[in-house]
C-alpha cells in the first residue's frame, strides 16, 4: 500500500479502524478469560489439577465463541443488502465498509482455525492431566475413571472429546478446501465442503453441553486451600495469590467482594464442608444461537423468494462466446449495479451462478437481462439447452442478491462525469455493448452534455493489422486505442481535470488490474483529487 496520504485514509481508514476494534475485542476476551481461570477461586482445584492447559483452553474457547458467532453475520447477504440500500445507512463510508463483508468473514474464519489449533493442543494436555492427576479427594472433578486411564480412551469416549475430534476433521476439510488455489481452480470443491459448516455448528452445540469442566459452588463454606481438621495440613498446596500480602486490620479501602469470605477466616481457614462442583451452563449456546437463527431465517427467505420461476423472453448470441439472456419475473425490482444468481435445475440441480445485471427492469419495461460468457461446464450446458429450446419458454429460477456497488439511484446521485474504460482482448468483444454505447453517446450529445461520458476502449492483444469495430460504430472506432491502458497517466489526467473532487473508481476485472488500481487510488496527487476504490465482488 502506498504511504499514508489523504487517499490512503479515505480508502483504508475505516476498514483498519474496524479491524483494530475487532482485534481489541478478541485480545480483551482472551485475557479476561485467562485471568478468570488463572486466579478465580472457583477454579482453584481444577487449575491445580490441569495447570496452564485449563486457562489456555478456556481463553481460546471464548475467542472461538466470539468468532463462531461473528463469522455467520457477513453471510446474511439479504440483511446486509437491506442495510446498504436503506436510507438509514446514508454514509458512503458505512456502505463501503459493508462491501468488505467477505473479507471479514475470511478473517473470522482464519481466526477460528488458528484458535482451534490452540484450543485442541491445550485440551490434549488437559486430557493427559486428567489422567495423570486423577484426584481421590475431589472425585466429582475428575473426567477420568481412574488414575492413569488411557488419555486416548478419554478423548474418544466422552461427549466433548468425540465431538471435538469430529469438529477438527470437519474444520480440516473446510480449511483445506478454502485455500486460494482451490477457490480459483476448483470452486466446486470449496462450495460443497463449505456447506459442512452446518454439521460443525450442530457438533459445537453438542460439544459444549458435555460439562466436563466444573466450578466450585460453595466458596463461602469451603474457601480453597482451607484447613480440614481431620486431615494433616498439606504443605504443598500453593496459597492463592490473593493472600500473599498481609491485610491490615482496618484498611481505608473496602475489600474487593471476592475476598470477603477469606477475610472472615483470615487466620484460621477451616473448611466448613466438602467442596461442591457444578458444570457450567453452556455459554456458547447464547453466543451462537442468535446468528445461527438469523442465518437460517435468511436461507429460508432466499429459498421461498426464489421459488417462483422467471420466464426467458429472448436469447441473443454475441461474438466471442457471449450470450445475452432477457427475462421477466413478477414483482422483480433491481437497481443498476446489482447482480442475480441463476439456478436452472435442468442444467444442474445443485449449482447456481451469479451474473451482473446488464439491463434492469424499469417502470415501463419489466424485462431484465444478463450477459453470460461461456466458460466452464455449467454455462456450456446452459447455452446448449437454450439454443436447442430457443422457441419455447424455458423456466429457470433466479435468486436475487444485491451487488455491493454502486447501488444508488443515479438520478439523486450527484454524478458529474463518467470515465468508462474498457479493456478487451478481441475486437469483436466490444460489440456486446457497442449499440448501447453509441446510442448513449448520441443522446448525451443531443442533450448538450457531450463530456458526461468519456469512453476509452483498449485492445490489449493485436496482430498488427488495423481493426475497427464496425462501419456504423464510428463513435467507438475513434475512441479505440491499441495496447493496455497506462493507469498512472490516466489517473493523473483525471485528477487534473477534476481538481479537489472525489472520484469513485469501480473495477471489474482480474486481480492484477485491481491491485494496480487500488495502489493508485491510495496514492496522493498534487491536484487534491481523492480516489475512492471499489471492487466488484459477488460476496
Amino acid at each position, binding site marked *: 500500500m502506498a504511504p499514508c496520504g489523504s487517499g490512503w485514509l479515505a480508502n483504508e481508514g475505516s476498514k483498519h479502524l474496524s479491524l483494530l476494534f475487532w482485534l481489541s475485542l478478541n485480545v480483551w476476551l482472551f485475557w479476561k478469560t485467562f485471568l478468570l481461570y488463572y486466579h478465580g477461586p472457583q477454579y482453584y482445584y481444577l487449575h491445580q489439577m490441569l495447570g496452564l492447559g485449563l486457562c489456555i483452553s478456556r481463553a481460546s474457547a471464548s475467542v472461538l465463541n466470539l468468532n463462531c458467532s461473528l463469522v455467520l453475520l457477513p453471510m446474511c447477504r439479504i440483511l446486509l443488502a437491506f442495510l446498504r440500500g436503506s436510507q438509514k445507512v446514508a454514509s458512503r463510508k458505512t456502505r463501503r465498509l459493508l462491501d468488505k463483508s467477505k473479507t471479514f468473514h475470511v478473517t473470522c474464519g482464519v481466526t477460528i482455525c488458528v484458535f482451534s489449533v490452540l484450543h485442541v*493442543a491445550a485440551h490434549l494436555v488437559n486430557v493427559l492431566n486428567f489422567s495423570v492427576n486423577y484426584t481421590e479427594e475431589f472425585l466429582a472433578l475428575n473426567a477420568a475413571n481412574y488414575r492413569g486411564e488411557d488419555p486416548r480412551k478419554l478423548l474418544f469416549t466422552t461427549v466433548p472429546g468425540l465431538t471435538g475430534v469430529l469438529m477438527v476433521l470437519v474444520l*480440516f476439510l473446510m480449511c*483445506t478446501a478454502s485455500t486460494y488455489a482451490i477457490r480459483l*481452480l476448483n470452486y466446486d470443491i470449496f462450495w460443497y465442503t463449505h456447506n459442512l459448516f452446518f454439521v460443525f455448528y450442530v457438533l459445537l452445540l453438542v460439544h459444549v453441553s458435555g460439562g466436563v469442566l466444573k466450578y466450585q459452588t460453595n466458596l463461602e463454606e469451603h474457601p480453597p486451600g482451607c484447613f480440614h481438621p481431620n486431615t494433616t495440613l498439606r504443605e504443598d498446596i500453593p496459597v492463592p495469590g490473593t493472600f500473599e500480602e498481609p491485610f491490615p486490620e482496618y484498611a481505608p479501602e473496602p475489600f474487593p467482594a471476592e475476598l470477603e469470605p477469606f477475610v472472615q477466616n483470615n487466620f484460621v481457614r477451616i473448611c466448613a464442608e466438602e467442596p461442591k462442583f457444578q458444570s457450567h451452563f453452556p455459554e456458547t449456546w447464547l453466543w451462537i444461537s442468535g446468528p445461527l437463527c438469523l442465518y437460517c431465517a435468511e436461507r429460508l427467505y432466499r429459498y421461498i423468494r426464489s421459488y417462483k420461476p422467471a420466464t426467458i423472453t429472448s436469447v*441473443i448470441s454475441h461474438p466471442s462466446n457471449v450470450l445475452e439472456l432477457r427475462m421477466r419475473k413478477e414483482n422483480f425490482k433491481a437497481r443498476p449495479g446489482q447482480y442475480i444468481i441463476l439456478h436452472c435445475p435442468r442444467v444442474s440441480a445443485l449449482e447456481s451462478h451469479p451474473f451482473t445485471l446488464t439491463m434492469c427492469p424499469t417502470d415501463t419495461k419489466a424485462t431484465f437481462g444478463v450477459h453470460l460468457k461461456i466458460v466452464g461446464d455449467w454455462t456450456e450446458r446452459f447455452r446448449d439447452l437454450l439454443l436447442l429450446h430457443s422457441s419455447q419458454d424455458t423456466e429457470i429460477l433466479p435468486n436475487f442478491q444485491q451487488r455491493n456497488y454502486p447501488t444508488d439511484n*443515479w438520478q439523486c446521485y*450527484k454524478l458529474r462525469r463518467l470515465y468508462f474504460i474498457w479493456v478487451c482482448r478481441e475486437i469483436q468483444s466490444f460489440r456486446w455493448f457497442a449499440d448501447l454505447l453509441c446510442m448513449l453517446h448520441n443522446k448525451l450529445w443531443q442533450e448538450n452534455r457531450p463530456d458526461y461520458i468519456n469512453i476509452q476502449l483498449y485492445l490489449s492483444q*493485436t496482430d498488427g493489422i488495423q481493426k475497427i469495430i464496425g462501419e456504423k460504430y464510428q463513435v467507438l472506432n475513434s475512441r479505440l486505442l491499441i*495496447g493496455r491502458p497506462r493507469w498512472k497517466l490516466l489517473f493523473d489526467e483525471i485528477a487534473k481535470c477534476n481538481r479537489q473532487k472525489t472520484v469513485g473508481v469501480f473495477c471489474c476485472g482480474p486481480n492484477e488490474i485491481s491491485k494496480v488500481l487500488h495502489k493508485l487510488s491510495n496514492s496522493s496527487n498534487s491536484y487534491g483529487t481523492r480516489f475512492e476504490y471499489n471492487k466488484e465482488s459477488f460476496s
Partner: protein
Amino acid sequence: MGRIEWAMWANEQALASGLILVTGGTVAVAAQFKGWQFAAYAIVAGVFICLLEYPRGKRKKGSTMERCGQKYLTAVVKVFGPVTRNYYVRAILHAALAVPAGFLLSTILGTACLGIASAIYLLAAIRGEEWNPIEQKPQERPQVGGGTIKQPPTMPPPRPPPETRKKQPAEEASQENPIPVTIEVGGVGR
C-alpha cells in the same frame, strides 16, 4: 461436478496433515512424553510428506498456480517417475505412514487427517488423475512500448502503388441486433 480434480484437494490436505504431524511430534518430543519415539517418527514422516506434496501437479485443463519456489522440488519428485506420478501409490503410502502416528495422543489428529487425504487420493486415482510436473515456460521477449503492446508488428507494411492496392473488405457489422437497443435512463445529472 464433472470437472472436479480431486488430486488438488488431496494435495492440500496431505500438506496440511504433514504440518500437523510435525507440530504434534515436536510437542511430544520436547516435553519428553511417554512413547516419544512415535513422536520422532511423526516428525520425520511429516517432513517427508511435506517435501513430497509441496510441488503442485499440473491440472488437466487450464493453468495451474505454482507454489512459491516449487520448481526445485518438482525436479526431485519428477525423477521417481511412475512411483510419484501414480496416485494409487500415494494413497497407499499415506495410509501406511498414518498408522504409526495413531498410537500417540499428540499425533492422533495427524493420523486422522492423513487418512482422509489418502482416501481422496484414492478417489483421484480411480478417476484416472495423474501427477504431472509443471514445466517452466520459455523466457518472454523484452516488452516494447512499456508493456502495453502484446504483439508488436515485426515487418514494415508493404506499400504497393495505389492502383494495385485493393480496398480491404471492411468488417461489416454483421451482427444485427434482433431486438433494438434502447436507453432507459432518467434525466442526466440533474
